[in-house]
């Protein structure tokens, strides 16, 4: 009896899995939330990806350009791919794993299949994923389906497949080298390192030569007369280093070429050698792929663990003993139970010690202060860069701090999965809710205040140094430094934001947790809900819109106070209006938050885990 063919097994699994996944999705549409989500999802998909293409687009939907340009583009693309491959030769460690799931390992490894058949199955499996990725890339770039789109998909698939085969075979090769005696191993790795480093240098020099040609064309205004770029390849070929670089890039250009060929005949002619390179890679992979079982089982286990972790399920952790012992702060057995909930939610964020974080922030603050002072005192020209960095730090903190609460879910949203347990705790619902929200609020506020403090340290350090040199930050413009992040401007704005943002973050948390508590069917509880599909994307859109709308409504009282202040106070107070506005925003929002905690506590009392969690 002949053994089962990997193609037939893969075909069966792919066919049944896809059909069942579609069947499950269709079954889910009986619930209105998924149906409405699907409508929104389709609307989003069509408006984002299937808009009509603009005129002037090239054969593959990307902007039309002359052949000379595409050739130059191909050359630079090949350089980028070459660098990626060479760096992976330097950095990638040897791994013998095939990318299979635990179910596949369990079903296929004891089955009457040869090791080669399992390898072929694993390769087919990745090809399907690569083909899907190529299709998505084509869709994003082209925004429609057509024959040229199909060509583009095939071209992308060949490129991705060659890279995938290359990296996998490289992992196998290095793993085999590691099994050799120590002396041989050292020679192999040493030689490889030297050769690859030489190739990196060669491609780097060749690339700089090519860039010089392009830069020359740009500098002399020849860019509008595109044929001047025709000279890139001949210019490279005229020098020994450039010619050697072109030889190194030759196989990569063969693989990339189908992507730029505009007509079908040319595409087919370019595809054949590209497939030849793919075949060579397959041969390399097939010859090196041996004894992959242990690594594959380990890899499948790791992937399953990562997946469980993404779904918020408890799994064994690989953290070292010392890292596991880290807690935010020592938790005594007596004292307020709220602290235990905050402690738990901070742990869910990460194993960090708050004392270390505070120390780190203080040291960073002092280093920023001293560093900026010393730098500007040495050379006032540094002031521009430092103030720019201060602005960046402030903006990053203001962006990351409030938005991190959308992804963290280390509060009631995450814990509602264990609602039965929450109800057993001897703590009133109001205190429970407040404690649950405190964890992410502390993290978010910490990021905002920490970022603003470091920005202030940078600006005040440079301001002091400038003052010692008899300059003011306002006089920076005079020495050719333009920046808005000057201490005099940044301080009142930061102060206002430091007052307002924590209150707004708390309000955001109330709204996000409230939506989950009130509408668990629409906004499912759980730490990291992983699901995919158009209907889920649509539901996420709807939830974002709903949360934004609720936040806008909640901010109306604050706006009623702040708008007259800005209208009447700006002319007198200038930027110092901002801290007062921050205070006027924080006060009504804080009152709303307090009310929100009570409402959330009532909702929590009424929350029925047996009904809501199975919805």
């Amino acid at each position: 009896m002949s053994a089962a063919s990997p193609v037939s097994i893969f075909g069966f699994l792919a066919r049944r899995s896809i059909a069942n996944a579609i069947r499950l999705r269709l079954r889910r549409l009986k619930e209105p939330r998924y149906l409405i989500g699907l409508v929104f999802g389709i609307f989003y998909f069509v408006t984002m990806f299937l808009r009509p293409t603009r005129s002037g687009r090239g054969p593959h939907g990307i902007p039309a350009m002359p052949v000379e340009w595409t050739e130059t583009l191909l050359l630079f693309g090949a350089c980028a791919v070459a660098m990626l491959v060479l760096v992976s030769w330097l950095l990638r460690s040897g791994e013998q794993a095939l990318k299979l799931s635990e179910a596949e390992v369990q079903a296929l490894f004891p089955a009457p299949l040869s090791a080669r058949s399992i390898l072929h199955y694993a390769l087919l499996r990745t090809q399907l994923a690569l083909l899907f990725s190529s299709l998505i890339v084509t869709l994003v770039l082209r925004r429609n389906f057509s024959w040229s789109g199909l060509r583009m998909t095939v071209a992308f698939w060949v490129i991705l497949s060659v890279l995938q085969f290359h990296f996998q075979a490289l992992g196998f090769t290095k793993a085999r080298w590691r099994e050799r005696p120590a002396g041989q191993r050292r020679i192999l790795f040493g030689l490889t390192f030297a050769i690859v480093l030489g190739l990196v240098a060669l491609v780097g020099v060749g690339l700089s030569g090519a860039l010089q040609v392009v830069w020359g064309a740009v500098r002399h205004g020849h860019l509008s007369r595109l044929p001047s770029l025709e000279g890139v390849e001949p210019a490279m070929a005229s020098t020994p280093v450039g010619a050697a670089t072109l030889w190194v890039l030759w196989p990569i250009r063969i693989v990339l070429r189908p992507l730029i060929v505009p007509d079908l005949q040319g595409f087919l002619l370019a595809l054949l050698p590209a497939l030849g390179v793919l075949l060579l890679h397959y041969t390399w992979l097939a010859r090196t792929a041996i004894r992959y079982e242990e690594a594959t089982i380990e890899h499948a286990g790791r992937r399953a663990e990562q997946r469980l972790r993404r779904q918020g399920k408890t799994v064994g952790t690989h953290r070292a003993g010392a890292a596991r012992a880290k807690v935010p702060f020592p938790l005594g057995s007596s004292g307020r139970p709220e602290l235990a909930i905050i402690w738990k939610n901070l742990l869910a964020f990460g194993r960090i010690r708050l004392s270390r974080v505070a120390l780190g922030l203080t040291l960073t603050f002092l280093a920023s202060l001293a560093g900026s002072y010393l730098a500007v005192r040495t050379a006032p020209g540094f002031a521009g860069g430092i103030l720019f960095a201060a602005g960046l730090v402030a903006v990053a903190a203001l962006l990351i701090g409030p938005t991190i609460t959308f992804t963290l879910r280390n509060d009631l949203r995450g814990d509602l999965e264990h609602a039965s347990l929450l109800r057993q705790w001897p703590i009133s619902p109001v205190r429970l809710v407040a404690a649950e929200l405190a964890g992410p609020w502390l993290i978010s506020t910490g990021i905002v205040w920490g970022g603003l403090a470091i920005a202030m340290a940078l600006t005040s350090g440079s301001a002091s140094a400038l003052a010692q040199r008899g300059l003011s930050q306002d006089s920076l413009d005079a020495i050719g430094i333009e920046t808005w992040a000057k201490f005099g401007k940044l301080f009142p704005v930061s102060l206002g934001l430091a007052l307002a943002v924590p209150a707004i973050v708390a309000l955001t948390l109330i709204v996000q947790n409230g939506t989950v508590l009130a509408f668990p069917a629409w906004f499912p509880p759980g730490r990291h809900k992983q699901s995919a599909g158009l209907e889920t994307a649509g539901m996420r859109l709807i939830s974002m819109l709903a949360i934004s709308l609720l936040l806008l409504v909640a901010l109306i009282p604050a706006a009623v106070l702040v708008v007259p202040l800005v209208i009447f106070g700006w002319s007198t107070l200038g930027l110092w209006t901002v801290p007062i506005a921050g205070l006027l925003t924080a006060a009504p929002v804080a009152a709303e938050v307090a009310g929100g905690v009570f409402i959330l506590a009532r909702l929590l009392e009424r929350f029925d885990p047996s009904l809501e969690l199975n919805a």
Partner: protein
Amino acid sequence: MIVVDGLLKAYRDLTAVSDLSFQVASGEVLGLVGPNGAGKTSTLRCLAGILPPNAGTIRLGGHDLATDPVGAKRLLAFMPDEPKLFEYLTVSDHLALSARLYQVPDAAARGRALLEELELTGKESAFPNELSRGMKQKLVIACGLLHDPEVIIFDEPLTGIDPGGIKRMKQTIVRRAKAGASVIVSSHLLHLVEEICDRVLILAAGRMVLVGTLDEIRRQAGQADESLEEIFLRVTERPAVPAAGGLAQASR
């Protein structure tokens, strides 16, 4: 028949199984017992062809697992302790996949009979996340038995199964052995091993400590009236000793 000779399995700097030799005749059930980390799962994975051994030979039904893996695995069914199923395949799909992997001609009828035997009738269209732990275990066993294997390896087969299911599972194991299969059952449930196994192999720290029928084991342990549990606890709490009688005594 299963013949294992000089099996050695090592992971980097850890030797999981060392110099393990035993045989399981057709129609025989061998109980493989040992404390956690004794090397049971590594042994079973090597026997199932999931992991390549570092040394030693394994022959299943006369086929050498190293030189004729496809021929050997065709006779084999391995039921792991933790069932891992395909998320988007139904119970019927899992059986169909097994039928294709093992080239089973009358899979539909056999599948129906197995589902009935394992009390999964009516669950044909269910997905894994709709099944209990015990049902998943039963499905894996149904998939394994579909091709009527000559060599059957059970790793903790009763985990998550209810008392009625346990009784029927024991009957299934014994029935398969009586039909001529060589069966290995690895379990921490020593009363199960005592009840259904013809012989017992005790592993500790990767080495065979004792092997034989319960009476032979009692004799080797020097205590005629001890239960398997008492012997197990006594012999696994001391450093491993070479197996009494080795391969010659292990095979009847």
